[in-house]
């Protein structure tokens, strides 16, 4: 999707588009949560419910040839970058027809055809991947940029510090997006990292903005400005989005480490509720919004049906696909 120029008020169609894309991520994850509870999704899943404005606001500022490196909480990044919904569900449900043939699952959803370089099971590991991808764009002079999403939990990883330095040294076309949800897995971020990410970026002369990550229009405006700067050759940029993680670190985490007060306050920050209130004052009718909700629900329902109809992956095909040509020893 082509977005409007930074600073211009969003058009009605763009607002509806933001709504649709946030709802898609929300409802896909709500469905994954229930499928996980029912045993239809195996393994670990990490939900980004409450953070949808970040992935949608940022990816709406991207072009198709831009690349994106994600993390373990990456469903929103994948869907909003354009990973097809049915192959997404098929993958997370562990099916042969999944986007990765059922070999990766939730933590490794990738789709090279839309520049989605993969969710990642290792905290911070996507950051140097984005550096390399940005290097490829710079060498190939293709006007694309790379974006990497990481949480506050990745701030203490050494590769972030190395990557800030290398990106600044090489003036790479990369946008760093820190989704600061205040929780590094099971521990509060302020007990994990003494600096803050914008000060750190400043030390490397990397321009940055910090926005309320639950206000999609703010996220998108900042992303438009920063991606434009990265694209025109100004080097790396940082966007910090202050947001809130509603679910646990992983699905099934009872979150006993969070206060009741914090948990009950989460609904005040909900990016979709906020957006619904905002657009109610615009020219968008309840009927139009209901029609978006119906459309999303139908799409998700179809995707779940597709997921259930998928087949178990073939072991021999997987075993012989470790290398491009045949097996190792």
């Amino acid at each position, binding site marked *: 999707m082509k977005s409007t120029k930074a600073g211009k008020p969003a058009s009605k169609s763009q607002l509806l588009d933001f709504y649709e894309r946030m709802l898609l991520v929300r409802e896909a994850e709500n469905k994954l949560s229930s499928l996980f509870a029912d045993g239809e999704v195996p393994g670990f899943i990490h939900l980004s419910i409450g953070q949808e404005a970040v992935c949608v606001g940022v990816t709406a500022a991207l072009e198709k040839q831009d690349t994106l*490196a994600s993390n373990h909480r990456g469903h929103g990044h994948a869907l909003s970058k354009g990973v097809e919904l049915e192959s997404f569900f098929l993958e997370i449900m562990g099916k042969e027809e999944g986007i990765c043939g059922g070999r990766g699952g939730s933590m490794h959803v990738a789709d090279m055809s839309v520049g989605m370089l993969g969710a990642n099971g290792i905290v911070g590991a996507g950051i140097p991947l984005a550096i390399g991808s940005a290097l490829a764009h710079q060498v190939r002079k293709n006007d694309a940029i790379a974006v990497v999403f990481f949480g506050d939990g990745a701030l203490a990883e050494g590769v972030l510090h190395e990557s800030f330095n290398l990106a600044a040294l090489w003036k790479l076309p990369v946008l760093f997006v820190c989704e600061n949800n205040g929780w590094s897995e099971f521990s509060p971020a302020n007990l994990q990292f003494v600096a803050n990410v914008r000060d750190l970026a400043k030390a490397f002369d990397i321009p940055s903005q910090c926005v309320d990550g639950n206000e999609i229009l703010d996220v998108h405006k900042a992303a438009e400005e920063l991606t434009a700067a990265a694209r025109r050759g100004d080097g790396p940029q940082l966007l910090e989005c202050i947001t809130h993680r509603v679910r646990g670190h992983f699905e099934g985490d009872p979150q006993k480490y969070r206060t009741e007060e914090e948990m009950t306050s989460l609904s005040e920050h909900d990016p979709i509720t906020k957006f619904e209130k905002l657009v109610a004052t615009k020219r968008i009718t309840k009927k139009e919004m209901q029609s978006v909700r119906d459309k999303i629900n139908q799409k998700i329902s179809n995707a779940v049906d597709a997921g259930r109809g998928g087949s178990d992956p073939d072991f021999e095909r997987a075993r012989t696909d470790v290398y491009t040509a045949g097996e190792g020893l």
Partner: protein
Amino acid sequence: MAEVRYAKAINMALDEALSEDPSVVLFGEDVAQAGGPFGVTRGLLDKHGELRVRDTPISEATIVGAAVGAAMSGLKPVVEIMFMDFVAISMDALVNQAAKARFMFGGQCTVPMVLRTPHGGGVNAGPQHSQCLEAWFAHIPGLKVVVPSNPSDANKLLKAAIADPDPVIFIENKAMYSLKGEMSETEEDVAIGKARIARSGTDVTIVSYGAAVNTALAAAKTLAQSNIEAEVIDLRSIQPWDEAAVLESLSRTHRLVILHEAVTSFGVGAEIAARMADIGFDELDAPIVRVGAPFMPVPFAKSLESQYLPNTDKVIAAVEQVLA
């Protein structure tokens, strides 16, 4: 046929790859301006320019992580890690990212990158600048591991590694950089995974790779004086390794010695011995003997390191043991 040093042979392969393929890029610590800590990349910056030949800061984790991301985005990066010991800092990028991307993304992408790094002792570089860590990588599905033993192979195998769609750990040997050798001009098949018979023999097979092949050849020369004809197999790559070539040689000699500079315990030799004990059991006239380093860090002092390293005497003793 021209004689070329090992370092120059690698330089020539890099030069050729950079000339032929605009997607090849080179980066690492001191590889551009300084021409590499061992002079291997000398002249490549001037010839190919700073867009594609780059110095990096001392950031091994990000150098290799960036190589993976670049390889997934259309480049063929060749990165250098100055001493193999330093790969410990880049393990996530190699083991969790490069090795698995193709598989875990269902074959949607390949990771056509090469990591060049020198292993090996013999220059009194001490415990953190001498290790042979190749078994780590041979153990990881998705990585290829190449260890050339001479300048001609280094040249041809590096070109093959750069052309390979999968991630390749290309292991050089710092004690060998000044070694001279003839550049083979034949179109001989120097493919990754294909061993060569470095010396033909009938009495015992010595399997080796990298610089240790030369130790095996020296031992074979001495053994010949006692009418023992050793066949020396140079594996060229250890992942994949040429099981068929080793079995074929064993089926003629019926005795097997495996030599590498790396620590013997849990090493590459253990895998080869286990496979030959399995598929070559009927061919064996004696137990397989491995020659390698003892289970200890590489020591610094000359007197210590010289006892630590495998040498011709140890190989000869092993051959005598399997022939006894």
